[in-house]
């Protein structure tokens, strides 16, 4: 559901599948164990994700607060997922591509 790797000095988190409440709980644990952002940028790659629930939004908010708009970004967002981010008003506070 999430693959974490370092790429060009930043931490890439490549998600796949449904980011519903149950799955997000699992990936949140995994990120907490493996991801230590420190000074590095973090990217959430969502090309393989077509469903996100509010639990995943909360996870994004947590890392956005840690990294700010410059050191945290979300990429590969499908139209359906983008709609959810927009409803939450996250498009105003995060870099979403």
């Amino acid at each position, binding site marked *: 559901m999430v693959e974490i790797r370092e790429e060009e000095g930043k931490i890439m988190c490549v998600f796949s599948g449904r980011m*519903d*409440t*149950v799955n997000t709980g699992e990936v949140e644990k995994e990120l907490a164990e493996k991801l230590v952002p420190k000074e590095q940028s973090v990217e959430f790659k969502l090309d393989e994700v*077509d*469903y996100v*629930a*509010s*639990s995943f*939004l*909360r996870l994004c*908010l*947590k890392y*956005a*607060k840690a990294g*700010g*708009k410059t050191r945290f970004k979300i990429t590969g967002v499908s139209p*359906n997922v983008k709609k*959810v981010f927009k*409803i*939450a*008003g996250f498009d*105003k*506070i*995060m870099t979403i591509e």
Partner: protein
Amino acid sequence: MKSLKLKAEMESLSPLLEFIRDQAVEKQINPDEIQEVELACEEILVNVIQYAYSEDGGDVEIRVPDRKDGFFEIEITDSGEHFDFLSLPNPDTDSPLKDRISGGLGIHLARQMMDEVSYQRAGGFNKVNLIKKTEAV
């Protein structure tokens, strides 16, 4: 009317949503709308699972009335504590990042994904009704 009653616990979330999805597919609702219905129902169900009951637990029931007027309706019922989470204020989606809080996002999403979300307390039950106008006939 089709219905499914399961224990209000996280393990029930997936079969409950599958039940809703099956009903929506049967009514030939388009995939994007199904996903919106599913998301709204997930958010309500998670609230029920997390907050309706104390340690003794209880059930949550989904009913899908057989409407043929272009509306897809779902009723979510539990017999837990009287708690109208729909009465809580919406999150401020315009505030800067530092002021953002995560509370209330789920219910906000549910409201936005559906045309109507309402709460009723009757006979010791909490009942949330979700209605979406669909393109299906």
